[in-house]
Structures are given as C-alpha cells and as structure tokens.
C-alpha cells in the first residue's frame, strides 16, 4: 500500500506553497473552485503569489484583498454574476498588482505547453489584439512549414496547482466530473499538485472507474479532505452555486474597510471548516444540497 498523502489544509498549504509561488487555482471556470484552500492561503498570510486561472470568479479578488498577490495571469477576473470585482480593480488601478492579460485559449495553451514540456504552443489567432502589448508571453512567429504568421504562446509552469474534486483516495488518485475546463492540463503542468476532496474514498472506488481520474496520485503531493470546500462555487453531485454569497460579497468588497470586516468574519476568525460551515448555516446548506440527482450508468470494465 503506497504511503498516504492525506494532510490537513493547514499542513498542505504551509508545506507546499511558499511566498512568491505561482499558484494555479480555479481551472474549471466557475465550477469546483478551491475556495477553502484559497482562504487558507489568506489566513497563512502568503505573500507575492502569482495567481494562474481562467475564470476564477471572486476567489482571486479575495486573495488580492488579502494582500497575497503580486501578479495575476488570467483571462477574466471578476464576480461572474455582478461584473467587475473591487479588490482587483483597486489593486490594478493603484498599480499594486500586475495583470498579464490572457484569453481563455492562451491560458490553456500556456498550461498545455508546460504539460507537454515545450517552451511554447502555436495558435492561429489573437493576432491584431492589444493583448500583445500587455502580455510579453505572446509573440508572433512564422510557421516553418506553411509560412503562416502565428501566435506563439509561452508556457506557464505553476509551482503549485490546487484543485477541488468530488472524491479522491489517500494516495491522491482523484475522481472529478462535470465541466473540468483545463484542470487536467493544470495538474500536468504544476510542479506540486494539491487535491482538495469533498470525500476521501477507498482506492477500490477509484479502481472501479479509472477513466474518471483527472490526475493519477503519482503526480499529487497532498490530499486534503474538505467537505463543502468549494462553497460558494458549485460542485456537481454535491451542492449548487450559492448565488447569494456572491451578491453579498459584491457589497462587502466595495470598500477596503467593508472588505476587512468580511474577511475577519469569513476567513481570519474562522477556526476550521466546521466553524466556516456553522457560519454558512444548516438552512442554507440544505437549500444548496443537490436534490435533483442525475446518476450515470455503471460501465463494465470486464475483460
């Protein structure tokens, strides 16, 4: 039996994320965002992080407000249902944080290049956009075969990739389902991979459905058991998106002062995940829990 990689959230974050690390998190658009891990980064006062993501929803805004971030590499940073987000705007407009503007595609190509171990990937487009002015990782090249002008998208290798999944075993073999975005690419590109799982299951459960593994445990350094660790983002099969949280956050993050109050209540003074869930409250959790089940038919792997 391989050694267990099960850590507490505190241990996993303190051991594998350093000040100055480049951290990929939120790689499945609005779904399965590792909020619990992000809050732990804020609680541990990690500094000078580079955040890597596609559409990270409000988690990036919270990390920026928490003073953790030097640079953002993303295609879209905001509050998905309300538009712009305030800490992000304040940080960029005051020049405190650097933004490297991507499109969803260049972000995924950067991670794919890193996953493949090559320095860049060619793309047919982004040509003509001012993204070339603001993003030094985009250059034009001439295709050696066709002579076409192409965009070269430089590789981005995260020091740490943190993902939230429905279930994993103690060795880090992680099952994930629903929309997954570029989670697999981010896991293949990352130096360290941390899995945050709703549920820790026996390896036999993983073995019963190996095609559903997003990343095998041999590329994983830590597994953390964190039920509701994706809240307020949705986790298919577990709970729905908590829209009210996003609306409340918009109001709370409007000024640095009100954000500080929000952060004290939802992050700084939270002892652990149980304490966090007590603050969310049982009624709200009951409302968010999945009631509309859509189960897949089992596949026969017999041979």
């Amino acid at each position: 039996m391989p050694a267990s990689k099960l850590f507490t959230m505190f241990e996993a974050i303190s051991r594998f994320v350093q000040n100055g690390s480049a951290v990929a998190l939120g790689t499945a658009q609005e779904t399965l965002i590792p909020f619990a891990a992000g809050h732990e980064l804020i609680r541990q006062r990690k500094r000078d992080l580079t955040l890597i993501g596609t559409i990270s929803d409000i988690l990036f805004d919270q990390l920026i407000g928490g003073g953790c971030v030097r640079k953002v590499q993303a295609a879209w940073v905001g509050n998905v249902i309300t538009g712009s987000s305030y800490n992000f705007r304040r940080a960029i407009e005051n020049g405190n944080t650097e933004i490297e503007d991507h499109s969803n595609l260049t972000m995924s190509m950067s991670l794919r290049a890193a996953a493949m171990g090559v320095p860049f990937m060619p793309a047919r487009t982004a040509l003509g956009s001012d993204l070339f002015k603001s993003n030094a990782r985009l250059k034009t090249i001439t295709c050696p075969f066709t002579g076409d002008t192409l965009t070269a998208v430089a590789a981005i290798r995260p020091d740490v990739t943190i993902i939230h999944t429905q279930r994993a075993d103690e060795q880090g073999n992680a099952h994930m389902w629903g929309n997954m975005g570029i989670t697999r690419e981010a896991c293949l590109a990352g130096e360290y991979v941390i899995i945050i799982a709703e549920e820790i299951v026996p390896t036999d459960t993983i073995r019963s459905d190996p095609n559903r593994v997003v990343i095998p445990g041999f590329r994983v350094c830590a597994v953390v058991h964190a039920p509701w660790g994706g809240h307020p983002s949705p986790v298919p099969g577990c709970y729905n998106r908590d829209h009210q949280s996003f609306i409340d956050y918009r109001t709370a993050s409007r000024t640095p002062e009100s954000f500080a109050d929000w952060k004290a209540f939802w992050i700084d003074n939270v002892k652990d995940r149980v304490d966090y869930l007590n603050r969310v409250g049982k009624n709200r959790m009951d409302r968010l829990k999945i009631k509309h089940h859509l189960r897949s038919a089992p596949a026969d792997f017999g041979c």
Partner: protein
Amino acid sequence: MTDKIATPDLMVYAMASEIENFNTVLHGVSSPLPVLGMSVARRTHAPDMAYISGAEGVDSEIDRIYPSSFDPRLNRNAVAYFGLHEAFDLAQRGELNVMFLGAAQIDRFGNTNLSVIGKIDNPKVQLPGGAASAFLMPITPKVVIWATRHTFRVFVEAVDFVTGQGYNNRSEGCKKNKIVVVSNLGVMNFENPGRTMQIQSVHPGHTVDEIKENTGFDILAAPDVGETPVPDQDIVDLIDRIDPDGIRRSEFH
C-alpha cells in the same frame, strides 16, 4: 402589439435569428442573453444546431437559466462535456460557426474593448478581461456582439484597448468573417466596402436618428435599413418560461 415587446426579448430574438440550423454555436461567461438566444434558436428554427455551453455541456436540456451562465445546472442531461479549450480548437479548425461576445466599448471598425478604460499602464477602470474575445473575434465566421447600453460612451470613435479585433486589425483572411452588433436600439452590421459599422435595422419605437445621436462616430444606415423583426407571442412566452426570474433584464439597469 409590436410596441409592447420588451427590449431584452427583442434582443434575444434578434440574437437567436443570427443562428442557422446545423450551426455549431458557443457562448461565454456572463452571457444570459446569448444563453436565451441559443435556447430559443434550438427550440424553434435551429433544432439541429450543436449547442456548446461555456459551461462545457453539449446539447444540454435547459429548462431555465440562472444568474451565472456557467451554472452546472445548465449542463443537465448533456450528451457530452466538451472542454472550453476543445471548443477553441474547434474554432481554429474553422468548425465553430457562431460566437456571442460582449463589449464595454466598440468602435466603427468593430474593435471591442473588455480590458481597460483609460491607458493600459494607468487604467481608469480595470475591466474583468476579454475571456475569449481576442482569440475568437477574428477567426469565427460570425461573431454577434451584444450591447445593452447604446450610448456614445460604449459606441466610441476608437476603443481604449483592442481586446477583440475589428476589421482594421485583421489579416485579409479574417476580413470575410462577419460581425453583427445587437444593441438596445437596433442591429448593426459591417456589410459595406469600407467595413465600417452601419445600421441594419432599428428596433420598434426607435429611430435611425436616435441611433446616430447615441453613437460616438458617424454611422450611416444601410441602404436597405428596416425595422428589427418582432418575435411572435409564442416566442415571448418561451423566453419567459426559460427565464421566469427575468435575469435577462439584469444587464439593462
């Protein structure tokens, strides 16, 4: 009855009308109007379209929309999950027909800005970002831009930052691709030799002059300018059923 149709419904119908049967169509983040437009098209004139959600579900059964356009419930009973990056690969191969994109600013050549108001190194307002725009704008055969506030602040002489590429920032090969702009006042296209924005149709209750007054550059009406087609009551009812909470109206505040 025509003047009774609400602007969001008219825009949804105009956006749905840009989709042809058997098209492969994708929508992105924060896109309630495109989600409704695609749903209406699929349930009316385009039953064979390939519906790819930005939430990655293909041909899902969408009973209703939610405040987020990437809500997993929009993927219920999908026939497949198709990664967003795979949808972009599809676009690079020329197999994505229609994409819906937003714009904080748009200019006469169809350049869009979703990045920053002011200068990039000294931003007045940092916007959330372009998401798919820089990639999909030039290479997609038809891009439909929706704009819920047709004012001279949005329809500007020149965008502060080119996120999505208009006709003056495209290679020859990409100039044949179409841009259609659906605003709260009318529908605009670029079907003229200079590839500049012109008025294709005016929504009922509005005028060509009103569009001109609210546009920050000289805009002409197309020679065949007409009135934007109005949806039947069946379609209005359908939109209401898919969006009982009126999420489509949230962008108009």
